[in-house]
Structure formats: structure tokens, C-alpha cells
């Protein structure tokens, strides 16, 4: 487990509070009656099948979704339709990779609303480089973003979020499509940030490789099905209600792992049947 003290309350109070929130797009609710509290300093993973509303939940916290009922409170302030200021890392598939921007351009966008000159101050430039150094992409600063590996691209956009100095960091599938080593690096980086006091909320499809390592997991499928440490919420019943599929839960070396219940696909050949017989 990455975080030693999951979901602990400290004197700063909740970073995010959703009270009986029903929200969606164009008059169509996607999430119903959501009650969720993310304490300052939490590291939370949102899991659920495709279309379950994980990204919508993130966007609700950002104030980018129509709220039909309930209250969204971020850092003690009620969020109406409009933008909440938070570090946000979108899914990489939404990026226009042909846009003529370098890694440094992307990172600097984190403070696009600071100042009225095309350039940034020397101090801000140094800070941008410090962020890139920390993420291991300073040597790629002048590279076009398309010319990077998946992990480096992820870091560039994480750099943009970090350059805005957020206390709340929201990430949409930050480990999607990257190799095991990069996934591990990204998770450890997020863990470091979390230990420095940054509240982290991320969505993930990877219930074993990612969510099982997080201190707090929220199972979403139109509603909040369950939340808690993986060892508590990874039960066959909760997983079936979340994913609509039978799953087997295994305890291995102190970790809770989820496996799909085996089922045969396709017609068994005569040879296999003979062997089985």
C-alpha cells in the first residue's frame, strides 16, 4: 500500500464534498445521489466499468458538469457550473498531438492565467524547469509533445498540472496505455506528491495493478456502490454490483487481488474434449 494513513481527517477538513449530487450532461443524469467526501491529503482511486461515470465524477468536482441536485463543495467553496481551480490531468487520448507545442509550452500552460505578457518571468521559468526536472523531462523541454513516449507525455501533462501548484490534483486514467515501469513511476510520483500534502483523486480501469495499491477506493457505477480500503471493498458482492460480472477475490502476501471467474470462450474442440474425458 502506498499511503500509510488512508482517509485520515486532519485540521484542514474535507477537500471535496459531494452531498446528494445528481449530475450529467444536456439534461440527462449520469450520476445519481452521490455522497462522497475526500479529505485533504487523501489519495483516492475511482474504479468502475466503462461508462460508469468515473470521468463525470471528476468533472463534477471541477464544476464542468450540470448538477441537477445536491451540493458540490471544493476546498470549502460551493462549486456552481463553471470552473473550479484544481490541477487536472485529462485522458491523453483527448489531446491534439499535431498541435505545435513543446513540452515546455505545455508545462507553462499551468499558469496561463498569470500575468499579461507572452513570456513568463524568470522566477516562473525556473519553477517550470524545477517541475520538469522533478518529472525527469527537463531534457525534453524543447521536444514536440508528439515525439515523446506515452509515459513522457503523461509526465508533461502532469507537469502542467503541478506547475499550477494545486492542493487538489485530479487525474483521468493517468496510467492508461503505459508500460509497467512507467505505471510504477507515475504511481510513486503521485504518492510522493500526496505525502507532500497534495490531495489526489484519480480514475483507473486497472483494479489490480493500480487501485489495489491505493489507500482508498471508490466503486462507481452510476452511483457510489462502495468506498473504503481495497481490502474492504474488493469483495465478490461489491465487485459484481460495480462491474456486473462474477469476480474472484484472492488474498496474496497481504494484497487483495481480483480475478475474473474463469469461463470458457468458444467451442471446445474434439481433441480437448477427448483429453478432458
Amino acid at each position: 500500500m502506498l499511503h500509510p494513513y488512508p482517509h485520515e481527517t486532519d485540521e484542514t477538513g474535507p477537500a471535496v464534498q459531494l452531498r446528494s449530487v445528481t449530475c450529467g450532461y444536456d439534461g440527462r443524469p449520469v450520476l445519481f445521489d452521490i455522497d462522497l467526501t475526500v479529505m485533504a491529503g487523501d489519495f483516492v482511486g475511482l474504479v468502475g466499468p466503462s461508462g460508469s461515470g468515473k470521468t463525470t465524477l471528476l468533472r463534477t468536482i471541477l464544476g464542468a458538469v450540470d448538477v441537477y441536485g445536491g451540493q458540490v463543495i471544493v476546498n470549502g467553496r460551493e462549486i456552481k457550473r463553471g470552473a473550479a481551480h484544481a490541477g487536472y490531468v485529462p485522458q491523453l487520448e483527448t489531446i491534439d498531438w499535431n498541435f505545435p507545442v513543446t513540452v515546455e509550452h505545455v508545462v507553462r500552460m499551468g499558469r496561463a492565467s498569470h500575468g499579461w505578457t507572452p513570456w513568463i518571468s524568470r522566477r516562473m521559468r525556473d519553477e517550470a524547469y524545477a517541475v520538469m526536472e522533478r518529472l525527469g523531462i527537463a531534457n525534453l523541454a524543447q521536444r514536440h509533445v508528439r515525439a515523446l513516449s506515452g509515459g513522457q507525455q503523461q509526465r508533461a501533462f502532469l507537469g502542467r498540472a503541478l506547475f499550477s501548484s494545486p492542493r487538489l490534483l485530479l487525474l483521468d486514467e493517468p496510467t492508461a496505455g503505459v508500460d509497467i515501469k512507467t505505471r510504477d513511476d507515475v504511481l510513486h510520483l503521485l504518492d510522493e506528491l500526496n505525502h507532500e500534502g497534495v490531495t489526489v483523486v484519480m480514475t483507473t480501469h486497472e483494479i489490480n495493478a493500480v487501485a489495489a495499491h491505493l489507500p482508498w477506493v471508490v466503486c462507481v457505477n452510476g452511483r457510489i456502490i462502495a468506498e473504503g480500503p481495497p481490502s474492504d471493498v474488493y469483495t465478490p458482492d461489491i465487485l459484481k454490483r460495480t462491474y456486473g460480472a462474477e469476480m474472484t477475490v484472492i488474498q496474496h502476501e497481504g494484497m487483495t487481488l481480483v480475478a475474473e471467474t474463469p469461463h470458457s470462450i468458444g467451442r471446445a474442440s474434439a481433441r480437448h474434449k477427448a483429453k478432458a474425458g
Partner: protein
Amino acid sequence: MFEPFQYDFFIRGLIAATVASGLCGFIGVYVVLRKMSYIGHGLSHAVFGGAVVSFVMDFNFYIGSTVWGFGSALLIILMTRVRKFIAADAAIGIITTSSFALGVALISHYHKFTRNFDAALFGNILGVDNTDLAAIIAVTAVTLGLVVLLYRRLLFTTFDPEVAPFFGVDTNWMDAIFALILASAIVVSLRVLGATLIAATLVIPPITARLLTDHFGRMMGLSVLIGALSGFFGIYISYYVDIASGASIVLLSAGLFTAALVYSSLRQRLTSMRRIAPTPSAAQTQHALFD
């Protein structure tokens, strides 16, 4: 060689075409990167509708057409943002052709028109007077000022309009200002370039620049340069070859685009050939990246 410079109309036309083409190249970078290349074509027609309405209502051409074009551009942007299933090209098609149709309807209804609208459609360098020149220079100066002030906000809004608001960028304001700049640029360029050819000056220079660089700032500089050069030499050539000034400017920039396309294709081929035989330094760099 310097013969045409003895005529005032030529000097006025040359300055107007150079500045207007440079301005279109400048704004065109945002147009192309927003994937709204067709907006130049559409808005120039919408502005034509606005010009006719201004004339019918006996209103100042520049103010009336700019307000009309600004409204049309805002409607297009709003339609694509609010109703995401309406693509930009469809929104442009609906709004600008409707506006153009309104202009045509008014022309056919009021037969008393004496003003020649051919110039608005195809451009007429002989028709550029001091007022037109002053309008072009004023709009260019205001556009430059606004883009300098809003450079980083506009860049973020163009690159990632969905995410920019989460970083404190008011994308609604950026869209409104962009629409105003675009409409103004089209209105002041109309007399020189004409509604039918203006789209090319908004699209060809930035696309040519994009072929030559991966850097946003450099793309902007190159696009202005290509636009301004096309404007200057387009007018100059049109004097000797005796062709319409708008056509000459567009053909010249199309020539520059072709040259850039050939150059970038050759460069790409050379780069991929080098990649096939990696040098030790390239291998080391790659190793360092993944360490």
C-alpha cells in the same frame, strides 16, 4: 522595376495588401489550429451579408459588417461548444450561408443598388482609399495588442479548450475576443482580397508555416511573413501580369505552400533514413530517456 511606385493608388494598395495578408496570416494560425479553416470562407460571405444590410440601413460599412461578422463568429463558436454533435464545419455552413442568403435576398429586393458589390466579392486594389488603409492598420494594431496581452490564454484555449477553464482561463472571453478579431480582420481585408479569396489568406500561410516548424511562436512568425510576402509580391506581380490582385496573392501563397510541402517531405524522408541507421549518440539519448 520601380515604375508602379509612381502611382499613389499602387502604393496604397501595396501597403494594404501586405498588412492585410500579414494580419490574415497572423489570425489564421488560430483559425487553422482550432480546425476551423472553413470559417474564413464562411465569415467572409457572412460579412458580405452584413455589408448589404449596412448599406440598406444607411449604416457605416465597417461598423455594421464587423458587428454582423462578430455575431456570426460567436454563434458558430457557441453552437459547436454547446451542441457538441454539431461539428464546426456544419455550424459554419448553416450560419454563414444564411447570412449570405440574407444579403442576396436584400439585393434582389432593393433593385436601387448603385454600389458595386463585385469589389466586395473579388477584391479591387484600385478601390482602396485612405480610410480603408487606416482601418487595416488600426485593426492590425489592435489585434497585435490583444494577442500580445492574451497570448498564453489564447494558446491554451486553442490547444485544450475543455481543460483551460480549470486553470483559470476564461475560455468564453477568449472565444468572444477571437471572434471579434477575426470578424474585424475579414471586414478590413474585404476590399483588397475579396470575400471569395479571403479564406485562402487565412489558411494557406499558417498551414505552410506548420509544415516548416513544430513551434507555436515560430509558426506564428512564419505565417505572418508568408502572408505579408504573398501580399506584397502578389500585388507587384498583378501590376505587370494584369490579373486580379486577390487571385495573384492567393496563387503566390499557394506556390509557397507547394515549395514548403516538397521541402518538408524531403526532410521527413531524410530523417527516417537516418533513423534506420541509428548513431551511437541517438541510442544513448534514447537510453537516457528511459532511465
